[in-house]
């Protein structure tokens, strides 16, 4: 064997190449948590690509990244225990408008059922049992949640079907060339989303040497990303822990554009999508649109 054949293969890709894997009709997992850590460089590329009929499995607390995908017409069905932005807007405006008009299907779950479903996928099981939800409206409004009698103790439980992700997209702090990813902070539910997916793309603020990863291997949260995208400010307008906080001005701008959807007015969101997603040809052009002075005003701490 020649030495060349034994070289380790890097997994670094461009945003465009990585996002090409996200095709019409797949089940797409999205990482982060409310106003933090969403893979926005990839999300905006999915919208530019005109992807349709996605089942989007948002983070346990989904933010406006899921709302934006809905507003852009990419989503047929959403699986999420919450879609909103805390005090900025308690209910995602596009999520609300599209579900009230019947255009969007909501697969109802709470956080614990959501993780039970991801866990079933990770474990390659048809379902995971869960207790909470018995006696509530959940089995009526989500017929995929099946009540059953547990054969061991005879208790009434819910079977939560596996939530199988074709592709997961995440945002994290750093990775080496080989898909060893480290988050700053807790990493939210990103590990569970990764474990439930066939294929995981992680965008990172910085690429680092494998030696740097090896200095603290316990911090490696995603040990096997299939694809890594270098995307500084890739979570903007959301925060990336240790790099920048949420850009509240930019989030407000989205909210103002999306709110009129609730009365059926699409013009403001179309303008927003054109300005911030469709016209900038790539992630760097998006950052230029936001502007250096705004980006530099976002203090790390």
């Amino acid at each position: 064997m020649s030495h060349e054949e034994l070289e380790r293969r890097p997994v670094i890709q461009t945003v465009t190449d990585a996002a090409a894997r996200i095709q019409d009709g797949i089940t797409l997992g999205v990482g982060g948590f409310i106003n933090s850590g969403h893979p926005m460089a990839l999300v905006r590329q999915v919208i530019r690509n005109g992807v349709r009929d996605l089942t989007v499995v948002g983070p346990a607390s989904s933010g406006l990244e899921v709302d934006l995908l809905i507003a852009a017409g990419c989503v047929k069905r959403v699986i999420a225990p919450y879609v909103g932005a805390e005090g900025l807007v308690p209910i995602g405006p596009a999520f609300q408008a599209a579900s009230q008009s019947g255009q969007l299907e909501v697969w109802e779950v709470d956080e614990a059922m959501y993780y039970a479903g991801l866990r079933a996928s990770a474990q390659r099981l048809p379902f995971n049992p869960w207790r909470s939800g018995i006696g509530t409206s959940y089995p009526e409004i989500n017929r995929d949640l099946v009540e059953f009698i547990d054969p061991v103790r005879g208790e009434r439980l819910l079977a939560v079907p596996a939530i199988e992700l074709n592709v997961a997209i995440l945002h994290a702090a750093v990775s080496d060339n080989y898909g060893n990813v480290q988050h700053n902070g807790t990493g939210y539910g990103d590990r569970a989303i990764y474990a439930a997916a066939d294929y995981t793309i992680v965008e990172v603020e910085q690429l680092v040497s494998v030696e740097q990863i090896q200095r603290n291997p316990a911090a490696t949260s995603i040990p096997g990303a299939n694809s890594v995208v270098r995307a500084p400010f890739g979570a903007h307008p959301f925060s990336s822990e240790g790099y920048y906080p949420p850009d509240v001005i930019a989030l407000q701008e989205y909210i103002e554009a999306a709110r009129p959807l609730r009365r059926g007015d699409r013009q403001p969101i179309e303008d927003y999508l054109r300005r911030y997603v469709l016209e900038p040809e790539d992630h760097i052009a998006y950052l230029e649109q936001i502007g250096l002075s705004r980006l530099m005003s976002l203090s790390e701490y």
Partner: protein
Amino acid sequence: MSQPHPVSNTALLGEPVTGMEMMAIVIARDLEDGEWVEVGANLPVPRAGALLAHLLHGPNMTLMMAMTKTWLLNQRSIEDFQFITDVRAARWAEAYYEHDRLLNNMRFRKRGVFFCGGIEIDCFGNSNLIGVGADHRRLEFRGPGAIGTCNATVYNGRYHLVTNSHSRRVLVEKCSFVSALGYGDGSPGLRASLNLPGAGPRYIITPMCVFDFDPTTNRARLRTLHPGVSLDDVVKNTGFAFVLPTRVETTEAPSEEELFTLRTRIDRAGTLRS
């Protein structure tokens, strides 16, 4: 964070007590040392109540703030963060709660106390965060989703319902949908028959009053009226029929220590006074 204008202690204590401050004080008095409290996103009242209990009588309480385990008795003043993931809270962390692990581990919640909101809360203590309407596929009003309330109201040792909006829109006879089970249709022993490990809701805490639940019928029962609130105010603004005991007490007014701690160490920005 915005800093308050310097004021004398007397002036600060002299400002009228708001409904939200009363709620926080009711929450604090009920919490016991040693309990585990999860302070969720965008819930300034339960946050203030949990911190007040921690600072005044809870040195062995465990607080989960901003996805971290924390202990704050040495903090002179505790900042109020706009977002649950604010990294500034992480400097107090004794542990990180990875969200999926938090939801996989239920045993430790035996001593947990939870605070559950709702776009609707009904007379049997059920909560709805899903939406309002007859047909789930065409809701008249789409809610935010249950977040973790379905599960947290089952596995925590006990919980309260809380709402900042004491209105007929929120306090309804029957929820359109139930995303967190209270006492269901009121049938005695329902929660036990479903093997739910945690107790049902103890109180409904509002800016006007505190309800508990009748032990026989499981229907909401007026427990105390906050100072200055009349029974008539409560009746007018409550959409469910509630049990009225022969004698209704007034919620004990805040002590100087409670109010001073709340206003100088927990809510310096005055969120609960706005």
